[in-house]
């Protein structure tokens, strides 16, 4: 780990320790400053790297973000969220202008977070979830969730139907999706010494999508249905993603279930794919500070050329033990037992495949802190 990374990690730690639990409000709320961050150590075995976890240990998993929201008038709002990682990368999570016509409709134009599933808009806010990492099948480097929608959205509340509260979000524009060259690794002719899995960003233009959220009469229970699609894509053919989500948030007990399906056509045989992913997680506060949780996740990528490989599969059982110093500052320790190499594979993937194959079983562990204010 470089000295710069160490310094950044230390800065993050200082921020964690000194973080206030409340936001900063200026001029009676006309400008609000909020933020969140995390730092973690990840370790995995069998030479397989799993997201932030690496076989020789990874201390460099940290990030910090600041969200600024300015009320320009009774109806106009501007906002931006800037994020920096301990690797030195900075990015704009979202930046937009918004006009609020009424509670029924507000128009936002700019770079927006992708409203899909429970965490599509808040994938890095660790104080909103029990596990240090979100399920990778849906929120990792997959074809489901984009880093942001560049375009516009119309959102609002549809009011109450009986004791149900409905809200909606419609959006359109361009979506930047992470893409990994997994399919290339299935053909031995593509392998070369030193070759690696590469995650690139693929822009899917002219997408339209939406999400509807129903807050049920049962306190703490909400339902979502999300989907988006595009009839055309520069790189690939038509694609769409759909899925339901259920979340229950109680005082001590919380649970979530999500399932998503991807359909994609393409010119090349391995671009024609179907992906299913689902997870179920539950967490319980044993005391005001101590929380335990468990999660089961499955992901299957089917290429229509008939290829099969552990690189197309991921199954995971995970457990976490968390200590919440305050509701906005938590230290988490988790362990993941993984079957499949879709998200757990050697960094030098080609060398491993050329040497005879992969170990499809991985054990990974994380310990880290997450905070928000």
């Amino acid at each position, binding site marked *: 780990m470089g000295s710069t990374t160490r310094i950044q990690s230390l800065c993050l730690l200082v921020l964690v320790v000194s973080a206030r639990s*409340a936001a900063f409000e200026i001029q009676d709320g006309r400008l609000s400053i909020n933020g969140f961050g995390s730092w973690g150590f990840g370790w995995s075995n069998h030479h397989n790297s799993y997201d932030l976890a690496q076989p020789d240990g990874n201390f460099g998993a940290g990030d910090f973000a600041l969200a600024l929201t300015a009320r320009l008038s009774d109806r106009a709002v501007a906002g931006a969220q800037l994020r920096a990682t301990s690797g030195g990368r900075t990015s704009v999570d979202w930046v937009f202008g918004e006009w609020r016509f009424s509670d029924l409709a507000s128009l936002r134009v700019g770079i927006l977070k992708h409203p899909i599933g429970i965490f599509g808009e808040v994938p890095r806010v660790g104080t909103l979830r029990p596990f240090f990492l979100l399920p990778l099948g849906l929120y990792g480097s997959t074809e489901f969730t984009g880093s942001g929608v560049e375009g516009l959205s119309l959102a609002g509340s549809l009011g109450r139907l009986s004791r149900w509260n409905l809200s909606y979000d419609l959006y359109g524009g361009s979506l930047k999706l992470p893409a990994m060259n997994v399919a290339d690794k299935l053909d031995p002719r593509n392998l070369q010494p030193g070759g690696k899995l590469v995650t690139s960003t693929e822009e899917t233009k002219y997408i339209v999508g939406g999400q509807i959220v129903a807050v049920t009469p049962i306190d703490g229970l909400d339902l979502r249905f999300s989907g988006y699609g595009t009839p055309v894509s520069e790189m690939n053919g038509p694609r769409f993603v759909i899925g339901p989500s259920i979340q229950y948030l109680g*005082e001590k007990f919380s649970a979530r279930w999500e399932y998503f399906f991807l359909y994609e056509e393409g010119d090349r045989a391995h671009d024609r794919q179907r992906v299913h992913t689902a997870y179920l997680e539950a967490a319980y506060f044993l005391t005001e500070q101590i929380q335990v949780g468990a999660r089961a996740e499955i992901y299957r990528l089917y290429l229509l050329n008939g290829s099969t490989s552990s690189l197309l599969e991921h199954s995971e059982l995970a457990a976490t033990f968390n200590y919440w110093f305050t509701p906005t500052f938590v230290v988490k320790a988790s362990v993941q037992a993984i079957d499949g190499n879709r998200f757990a594979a050697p960094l030098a993937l080609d060398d491993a495949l050329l040497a005879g194959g992969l170990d499809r079983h991985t054990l990974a562990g994380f310990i880290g802190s997450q905070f928000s204010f």
Partner: protein
Amino acid sequence: MRRLILLTILVGAVPSAPPELRVVVNEANPVSSLSRQEVSDLFLKKTSRWAQLGLVMPVDQPEGAAVRETLNREIHHKSLSAVRAYWQQRIFSGRDVPPLEKDGDAEMLSFVRKNPGAIGYISSSASAAGVKVLEVRM
């Protein structure tokens, strides 16, 4: 004597009543009665405009204040963690920010008196001079 001891134990075991809460608005606000759900929607910013006064300006008391816990339980019908998760989701998706916080009944009342669109809440023991107390239909 045994009965007296039992009575003392039973009385001691009864939890102390939560502080009652009064929802207050500016005296210029023509609204005098709202349902519990309507009040909840105002504090969660699901309803953002008064019919005649424009922008709603909800004001909260700090987390940990007993009267705010009463608001969560009696008005929102949500746990503190559920309300906190609601606002974190709103903040970091860029949807909205939580209401301003005013530290105690006196600051809350001062803000409501100054702002026609304001809505706040105070404990029942505080004087509501200079503001209007809403009837909340449960």
